[in-house]
Every structure is written in C-alpha cells, then in structure tokens.
C-alpha cells in the first residue's frame, strides 16, 4: 500500500504541473469504452497500477490504445528497462536505445541504422514520439501496432538479430527481469508476448508536446517569433496563386504533422527501395513511404527513409526544385503544388526567403522537455 500511495503522490505532483499547462487526460481508449482495467492480478502478486497517460490539449483525443495491452506503471517501467537492454541483441552490444537515442528525439544521427556486427540497414532509424495515433508503423507500414513492430528490430539479422525465444531465455536468467515481468503481467515465466507488450507500452508513453509550436498552439502567441509565424503560415498554406504556400500541411497535417498515410514524394524516378509496396505488393504503392511526424525534426537529421539529405535546407530544396516528376505514383499534392501562376505541373516555386522561414518554423518543433524527460531516459535502477 505504501508503494501504491507513493506512486499516486508522484503522479499527482506531475499532474498538477501538467494540468496547469493546459493538458488534458486521455480518458478513453480507442473503442471509447473508458479506461481499461489493468490485467487481473495473479495470486500473490499485486495488481499493476493503471498508467495515467497525459496528452497535450492540442493533440487528437483518440489515441490507439489496444485493449489487450493497457498501459500500466509496471508495464511501462519494464518496457523502459527492456528498451535500454543490450542482452536483447545476439552479441549483447545493441539495445533499442542504440539507434533510438533520447537526446536525438530517439534517432541515431545516421543515414543508415547500424545493427549487430556493424551491419548497415538500408533505411534510416525513425524518430519515436507520438506514435499513439499511427495505425501502421515503420517506413513502409509493415507493422500494424507497436507490439508487432517491436518484433522486427529485435529479430532482424541487420538489427539486433536475436530470436524472441533466445531473448526470453536471457531475460529469464537475469535476476531482475522475472520479478519485473511478474509485476507487470502477473506471476509466471517471461514470455515473448509480454516482452513485446512491455516495449510497446514504453514507446506509447513517448509523447512530445511541449515545443514552442505547441505552446503557440495552446495560446501563447509569444512562443514564436514573427519569422517563425510566417514560416508556420507558409507551412500550413496550400499554394493557390496568388495565395503563397509551402504545400507542406496537406501531408504533414495537424498538430502531429502527419495524416498517417503513405506517399511518393518524388525522390527518385526509379526505385531502389519499393517502400509501401514491400508490404502490399501493389505497383501503385511503389516508392511510397510513411509520412512521418516532423516533431523534433531539427534533431533527427539526416532526412528521408535513406537519410539522403543532411540538412533541412536540402529538404526544402528537394521539394522546391528537385522533384523527380517522372517518378511513378508521385503524390497529387506534389504534382499540383505550385506557387507559379502557370498552374499545375510547375515546381513549387518558393523564394529563398520563404524557404528560410519554413526552416525557422520547423526548428520550433524541437521539444527540449521531451529529450530531457527523465521518464524516458536510461533507467538508473
């Protein structure tokens, strides 16, 4: 009981601070049925405590929270330990956190992620934040849900390259883990399912919503400078001559900067990576990749699925001047996005000053609270 009380005390203090900042609690699960009860306690084991997930008030109110894996304090804590656990890789050298570093908004600063034995991934490690609204994960949407997603990096030969069975055996053999699993999921041996569930729980708590942009959206008009506001205005505006716009928000829509779909953004006329088609097999999906959130984008260079662009200026130059118009399945919003009075078929046609303002706005998406939040860092116990 003492432990339960102190948990509530801790959370209470945090909530008071958060509540004042205009933050609301996600009081519902994805089926709208209210907070799900934590799993039933096993005999002799205390029931886990429901985790009070707190969402910024400017975020959508419908996060995807699977009913068979409700967030619990103990599950999230276990997931955090596992996220930083190198024994989940075949040679005990790579943890999830190796490629998803908190100080880089859970990316690795590399164009191509590096796994065990120095193996290079053809794609760039994605930033992890605000994934509660993404039904399909990874660059190509192969994984539906974070539980399914967790399996790939753990087992993939060029990432951590260890079977879940081997991971479970290693965890079972370490003194701390059987107890942590029992706290989170009830008495019994460590299981593959619970390993994936705990990791998914931790990643669901990685909510980034305190950037200058968020503060501006929640009413603090002083949070952005005049140039940054101009950049925001261009970012959200669809060009429709004479109305000038950056044509960004048709895809990077809303406060999460994504409409959760997959598009071809005109990188190449011919594809070396089929993207979404890898998962669907459809020719119409070739060259399409997930539209990522732009949260903390200034921290997550290099850019695109293969890290081909080193800077945000390079990214803006791509959209403005270097679209491969011959690329199959090129998105309609790019095909038709132009500030040119000549109309559809022309390049985006932003001025250098406008591109600079958009980059200034993108830098306001950096959330320094998120990258320093002790709840997301390497466990100290």
């Amino acid at each position, binding site marked *: 009981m003492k432990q339960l009380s102190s948990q509530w005390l801790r959370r*209470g203090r945090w909530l008071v601070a958060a509540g004042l900042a205009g933050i609301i609690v996600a009081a519902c699960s994805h089926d709208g049925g209210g907070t799900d009860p934590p799993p039933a306690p096993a005999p002799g084991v205390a029931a886990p405590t429901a985790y009070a997930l707190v969402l910024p008030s400017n975020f959508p109110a419908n996060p995807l929270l699977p009913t068979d894996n409700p967030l619990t304090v103990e599950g999230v804590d276990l997931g955090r330990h596992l996220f930083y656990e190198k024994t989940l890789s075949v040679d005990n050298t790579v943890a999830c956190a190796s490629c998803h570093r908190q100080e880089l908004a859970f990316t690795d600063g590399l164009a191509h992620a590096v796994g065990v034995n120095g193996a290079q991934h053809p794609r760039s490690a994605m930033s992890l934040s605000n994934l509660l609204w993404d039904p399909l994960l990874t660059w190509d949407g192969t994984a539906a849900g974070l539980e399914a997603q967790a399996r790939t990096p753990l087992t993939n030969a060029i990432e951590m390259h260890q079977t879940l069975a081997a991971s479970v055996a290693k965890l079972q053999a370490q003194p701390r883990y059987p107890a942590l699993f029992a706290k989170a999921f009830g008495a019994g041996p460590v299981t593959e399912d619970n390993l994936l569930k705990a990791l998914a729980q931790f990643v669901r708590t990685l909510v980034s919503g305190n950037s200058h942009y968020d503060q501006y959206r929640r009413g603090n008009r002083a949070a952005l400078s005049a140039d940054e506001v101009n950049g925001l205005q261009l970012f959200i505006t669809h060009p429709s001559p004479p109305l000038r716009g950056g044509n960004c928000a048709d895809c990077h829509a809303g406060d999460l900067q994504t409409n959760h779909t997959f598009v071809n953004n005109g990188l190449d006329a011919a594809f070396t990576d089929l993207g979404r088609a890898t998962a669907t097999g459809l020719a119409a999906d070739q060259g399409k990749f997930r539209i990522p959130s732009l949260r903390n984008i200034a921290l997550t260079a290099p850019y695109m699925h293969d890290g081909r662009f080193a800077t945000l200026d390079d990214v803006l130059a791509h959209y403005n001047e270097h679209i491969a118009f011959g690329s199959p399945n090129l998105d*309609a919003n790019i095909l*038709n996005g132009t500030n040119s009075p000549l109309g559809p078929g022309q390049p985006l046609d932003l001025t250098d000053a406008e591109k600079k303002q958009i980059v200034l706005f993108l830098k306001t998406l950096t959330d320094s609270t998120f990258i320093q939040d002790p709840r997301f860092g390497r466990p100290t116990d």
Partner: protein
Amino acid sequence: MKRYFRAWALLGPLAALAASGCKKDEAAGADTGSVSLEMAAVVGTAPLAFDGTSYAKADGQTFKVTKFKYLVSNVKLTRADGTVYAAPESYYLVDAAQPATAHLVVPNVPLAAYTGLSFVVGVDPLRNTAGAQTGALDPNNDLYWDWTAGYVFLKMEGTSPQAPHAAAAAEGGLRFHIGDNGTQRTITFTTPLVVAAGHAPALHVQANVQALFDNAATASKNVDFSKMSDVMGGANAPTVADNYAAGMFTVSRVDAN
C-alpha cells in the same frame, strides 16, 4: 484508498474535457432506436479501389483515386406527416481508406415510421467557423484548412493523364478539396424507414466518385480535367459541390434489421 480517490478527483474535470472526443453509442431508451448508414465508395458501379485502377469518365478522360473522404452532418429523419427528427450533434467522418469509418450510427431516434432521411455533406456554417473541434471534426482528421480555420467537406485526390502535368510526368494531379460556407449540400433520400423497438434499420448508401465529375442532369457542370484539376475551395468548388449533390449518393438497399 483515500488518496486514490483524491487523485481521481483531480483528474475528473480534465477527463470530462477529453471524454467528448470519444463518446460511446448510447444505449437506446425504450422509446428510441437507432438508424445506421452504411457508406460504400464506388466508381460507376465498381467498388472504389486505391490500387492504381484507372477509371473512365463519360467523356473518356481517365483517372485514378488515391484519397476519398468527406464529412457528413445534420442527419434528419422525416415522418409521413411532415414532421422531422433532427439528430443532434450528428457529425461523421467517412474515409474510403478506413473501412471502420463507413458505419455511421444515429442513436436515440424516436420510434416512428419515417419516410425519408437527409444529411448534409459538409459542416453547417455555425460549426464550420467555430474553430477546431473534436470527434469527426477533429482537425487532425486531415479535413481541416489551418489557414482558413474551416473544414474541408470533401477531399478527392488522384491522378489523370489529361490533367496538366510537368513534361517528365505521365499524369497530372487531381486535387478536389471542397469546402467554405456555401458548398454545403443536403442529400435527401425518400425511402420508408421503420424505427421500431428492437429494430435498427440500416440504410446502405453508395457514394460514386465519378459523379464528382459527371453531372448527368447538367452537362455544363461536367469537369474537364484539362481545365480543372486542382480545386481548393474557391470559384470552382460550388460546381463540384453541385455535382455531388446531383447524383453522387444513392441508396442501394435498406435493411430492416
């Protein structure tokens, strides 16, 4: 356990704010029932596919569809005596790429034998300009113009070889984003619909994407992709809205359930 309840008391008012975004279908009372609308997307007579299928308009121009979604609001049911039940707070998002959004439930409908149903494609002017809202009207549903602070009522995106395009491209983009006050259109169906105790009738509705461009009644409103391929509200939006009012929605059947 005292502390437990105090903590939740703190959460209460905040939770109430959030709860509006996720209300459950309320259990029907004894004197009310529910009606559902099952929205299927088609092109002509074929189910809409996002797999690169090429469709043809009446004039032979072809198009592919990559996105088709719209907002439905203000559902009304009409009785034989002319009186109307207007469902309060009836706002729905229909996204052809998300099958779960095709099933619209109108709860708490008074038991009666109705003779028709209507809904608005779009959002009524009052709510359209009330700023960002929740549920179907959540601005994060990809149907919101941040720069005008109003909703996009209907979004169709795709490509067509007849649309203007860069020399290197085989096709141009089709982007029909219809919104702004003045482009709301009411769709009315005349069909017997009996809401009785223990029955939840379902109206199966087909939304025909092709009807955005082909107006059987008024040929002057047909869309020629070589001249109109990028509509973001503005002067051409009412024409497209007239088209979807004229013939996009049809009832394929009614299940009494």
